[in-house]
């Protein structure tokens, strides 16, 4: 793994040099991952896929020779991978609980900072066959509702929001992550599901997101931290700063996140 990184950097630098004809990239391809090059590895919650990919591009733009690699997945899976020694530089989780796994293990550098918040919306297929308008509609018999499993952050949030709305829902399935809930709604297999506002927005016109007041009771905080044994500690710090910067915030709020 470690041996492959310089080759990758050299290849990227060479490509950049070939494409742009820049003068200063020659140093990088020779140096093989020196000060100005390197690969930054970011572990981020699946719901950050769109925004972090965009931020990664911006980061690569302002750091010539640097390549940002993402590992998107369920926050708890990522947290476990990090505590088991996966070579991550930055960890962005979808819940403080999953971040706590990493900080408890002494694998985070400093105190994690909340950079975004996300709230749940009711997602329905665009033709809305179940005629869903408010949370209480979800308890109607015959309506196929899918929720996240309580073990994952979106499921825990769904429980809280539904309890706040005083609605007893009997879901037909408890999916493994929020994207799976979205897929079931998108394909019309489910009449409704609870997903994050950002997910509903990312699905474009294929699902309709219905906001509801009680979701304020279950707002998810997204913490970010540098990993203690980050192979690229300096770059990791800079990436965290970018996410927390006004530019980072603009990207996140543009996708439907709320500022902390």
């Amino acid at each position, binding site marked *: 793994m470690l041996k492959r990184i310089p080759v990758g950097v050299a290849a990227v630098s060479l490509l950049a040099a070939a494409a742009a004809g820049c003068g200063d990239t020659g140093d990088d391809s020779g140096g093989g991952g020196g000060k100005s090059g390197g690969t930054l590895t970011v572990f981020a919650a699946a719901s950050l896929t769109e925004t972090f990919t965009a931020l990664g591009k911006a980061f690569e733009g302002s750091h010539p020779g640097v390549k940002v690699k993402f590992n998107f997945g369920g926050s708890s*899976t990522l947290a*476990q991978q990090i505590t088991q020694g996966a070579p991550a530089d930055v960890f962005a989780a979808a819940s403080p609980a999953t971040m706590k796994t990493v900080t408890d293990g002494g694998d985070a550098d400093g105190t994690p900072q909340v950079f975004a918040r996300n709230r749940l919306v009711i997602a329905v297929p665009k033709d809305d066959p179940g005629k869903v308008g408010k949370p209480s509609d979800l308890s109607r018999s015959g309506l196929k509702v899918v929720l996240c499993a309580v*073990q994952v952050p979106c499921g825990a949030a769904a429980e809280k929001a539904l309890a706040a709305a005083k609605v007893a829902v009997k879901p037909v*399935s408890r999916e493994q992550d929020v994207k799976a809930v979205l*897929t079931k709604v998108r394909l019309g297999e489910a009449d409704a599901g609870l997903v994050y506002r950002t997910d509903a927005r990312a699905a474009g016109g294929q699902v309709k997101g219905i906001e509801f007041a009680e979701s304020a009771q279950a707002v998810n905080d997204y913490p970010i931290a540098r990993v203690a044994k980050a192979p690229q500690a300096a770059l990791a710090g800079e990436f965290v700063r970018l996410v927390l910067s006004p530019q980072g915030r603009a990207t996140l709020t543009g996708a439907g996140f709320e500022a902390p």
Partner: protein
Amino acid sequence: MRRRERDRWAGGGRPPWVLLVPALTGLAFLVLPLAGLLVRAPWSTLGTRLGEPQVLEALRLSMVSATLATGVCLLLGVPLAWMLARVPFPGARLVRALVTVPLVLPPVVGGVALLLVLGRRGLAGAWLDSAFGITLPFSTAGVVLAETFVAMPFLVISVEGALRAADSRYEEAAATLGATRWTTFRRVTLPLVAPGIAAGAILCWARALGEFGATITFAGNFPGRTQTMPLAVYLALETDPQAAIVLSLVLLAVSVVVLAALRDRWVSTS
């Protein structure tokens, strides 16, 4: 059994190192992860964790659905293998390749494909829903279908291989004696390839038991209805890795016992 193993030894003398070293490395590679599970298992709390009703429910559902899926695979897969091995038809090569598609397809993709065909708005599923009021996703029947889709190729390939290796002169003899093709199939072909069918069925059952991706995508995850052991393991891993290890051990123990018992009984006679 024991006698036969000794006979094999007597034939070859010392096994050559060139074969023995990779063989043992291969064995270690397959067995070590299992040992890892055993080492890390929370033995002290094992009893209480196993008593949880959710565990038993998931185990029961896994066994039932894997067995039903194997049944469906046998009903459809054996005739399919026979057709591929015995009936020459144009495009047989392509059909044979198509049959193995579920082997190479990531199971999650298989699950999405099943949704697109048999889902509530799927090509055939929409008709099932409007004509009979049957919806397959989120049901135990959906679990069986997903497992059947993923496991059937194992059966078809094993049985087709057995049919090709079998001596077709017996079938020809039966035909010359006036037996119809159906009688020949039932009385001659089936008994001839029975060990191959048994081996295929065992592979098929094992694959169905471990199925995760297609099941969670097509049938969803609901305790008692569609939550099989692999799904329970996956979700336990999210919050309680120790519980996930216990669940994995249960699944492993059950499958090893069943597979070992069946193998000795049927496969070794081939």
